[in-house]
């Protein structure tokens, strides 16, 4: 069985009482010492090393803690995904919150560094500023609106 997290594909095959796990062309034997689905905890023996993991699942996301370090992985189809941070020409919300003020409208000419809108979340104010000189092509949000992290706020034309 193959699973892809972000861009890494991992293959798992039962092998006796254990599993053969292949990643980056390397195969290791993994034994499940204990699995507690209710508490989301697994004790594994990976290549002879005892590893305790907490795993939670939320749709395609997997949260994993091993040795006090937590990672968030996203299950994907396996194809490389466009990372939304790179969204061409768009300005995205760096955090979830509320749009406090909008200073520009569609068609406005803006300068690099100009504040286009301000957001607020958890006692903090964040200014969304133009990354370069350009023209506002589209506004996806308005004052008072609640936005999610990485939601596209404004589209720009160079």
């Amino acid at each position, binding site marked *: *069985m193959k*699973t892809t*997290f972000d861009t*890494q594909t*991992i293959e*798992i095959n039962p092998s006796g009482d254990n*599993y053969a*796990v292949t*990643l980056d062309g390397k195969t*290791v034997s*993994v034994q*499940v010492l*204990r*699995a*507690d*689905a*209710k508490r*989301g905890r*697994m004790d*594994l023996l*990976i290549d002879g090393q005892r*590893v305790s*993991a*907490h*795993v*939670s*699942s*939320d749709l395609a996301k*997997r*949260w*994993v*803690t*091993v*040795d*006090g*370090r*937590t*990672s*968030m*992985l996203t299950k994907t189809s396996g194809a490389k995904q466009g990372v939304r941070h790179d969204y061409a020409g768009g300005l995205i919300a*760096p*955090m*979830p*919150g*509320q749009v406090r003020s909008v200073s520009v409208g569609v068609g406005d000419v803006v300068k690099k560094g100009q504040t286009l809108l301000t957001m607020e*979340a*958890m*006692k*903090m*104010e*964040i200014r969304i500023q133009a990354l370069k000189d350009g023209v506002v092509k589209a506004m996806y949000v308005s004052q008072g609106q*609640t936005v999610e*992290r990485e939601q596209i706020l404004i589209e720009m034309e160079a």
Partner: protein
Amino acid sequence: MFNKILIANRGEIAIRIIRACRELGIQTVAVYSEADEDSMHVHLADEAVFLGDAAPKESYLNADKLIRAALDSKADAIHPGYGFLSENASFAAAVESAHLTFIGPSADSIRAMGDKAESKIAMKKAGVPTVPGLEGLESDDDFKKAAKEIGYPVLVKAAAGGGGKGMRVVSEEKELTEAIESARSEALNSFGDERLLIEKYLANAHHIEFQVFGDKHGNLVHLFERECSVQRRHQKIIEETPSPLLTPEIREQMGQAAVAAAKAVNYYNAGTVEFIFDPILSSFFFLEMNTRLQVEHPITELVAGIDLVQWQIRIAAGEKFPFAQNHFHQHGHAIECRVYAEDPANGFLPSTGRLLQFIEPRGPGIRVDSGFTVGSQVTHFYDPLLAKLIVHAENREVALQRMKTALQEFVVHGVVTNIDFMQAVLRHEDFANSRVSTRWVESALESGILLLENPQQAVGFHHLIAAALADVVFVSGKAQSAVSNETDPFNPWRKTDNYRV
């Protein structure tokens, strides 16, 4: 003593206050906004009053609603916690004029310390050392002249400010005008007051504050220092006491200055006098006074051996504080790490979501003050503080080791936290050697001396295996042995529940 106290706050601090009330045999009234309907503080209080919308001004910042709730529930006092209205002099005055007791200092003390410019003048008068700077300036030219006099870098900051808001560091003259403008607008937005002051910016400074505590009968002592230099975005994330930088002599001097500062404004109840400390010159300057309970008060409780919240309540009820300065000694070492729902890799910006997992560490010398549990929603409306992890041990070395172990055991899934980041800070030799100034986090990240990943562990590999195997093992029958060992407190009802999933 009071019969019933309304707690005008939420989250961990509301829970902390509920516990103190319970132990004193006092009834509690919680308040909550729409976002907090199912929060722990609501469930733990004896009564709970709904305030309104999630937006703070409709709920926790709404003085009228809070006072009305206190009167309706027949409470005889209000504890403001920290943040929200805790340092609002008008609120304190309104509470008292409604014949309720405000658990904190007098409105006059709050007012005197709330204005950074005026308080600085008062401190100079009281002989407390202050940072070189000027107050009461208006025109850009005045600021430019003052900055030149003081010498760059300078700091412009809101006279009415606090918590890093309306504060800008300016390293050269050409940045000054824009910094003033943005600080002013932030100050106006945040405090309704655009006045700024300017002062010397001390680049390598440490933030060391002193807890003070006094009663209404003129007794006032300090309860030693807290070293709070590990900061990001001008906000503390790790605090400890004692500060490894202070000699007994400097501690004594700073403690006396803190007491003088508080006495200058006729202070009573719990308060904190913040200093900037220059470790090279061993000199210290008054920064501001927080006229309320501090987030990091637990480390003082552990090392000074006193329950500050219980005493806040007793003092407010008119009791005498029975301890003189020489009653107190520092026992052992305490560290606090603030676990925030924030992403260090994303500029420490907040992260929201539902908590899929929330396992707090436990053990001797470990205290966790938190207001969250599995299933809690972390919203964008309020401060992203998830928990305060506090350790106490016989000395700094053991405390540090205890904190590292405890952070490793703290599991939070569903929101990104700064747990891994704080582990990296504590692992760094600069922390071990007390070389962390208030600018350290920023510069350590810039220069790359702070590595967010522990390179010794092949963690990525194990994480991937665990994530992939979870899908196989938890879904297949392989987890049955563990599952069948679980007992549900409601097994006969469980089946019924299942039909509704």
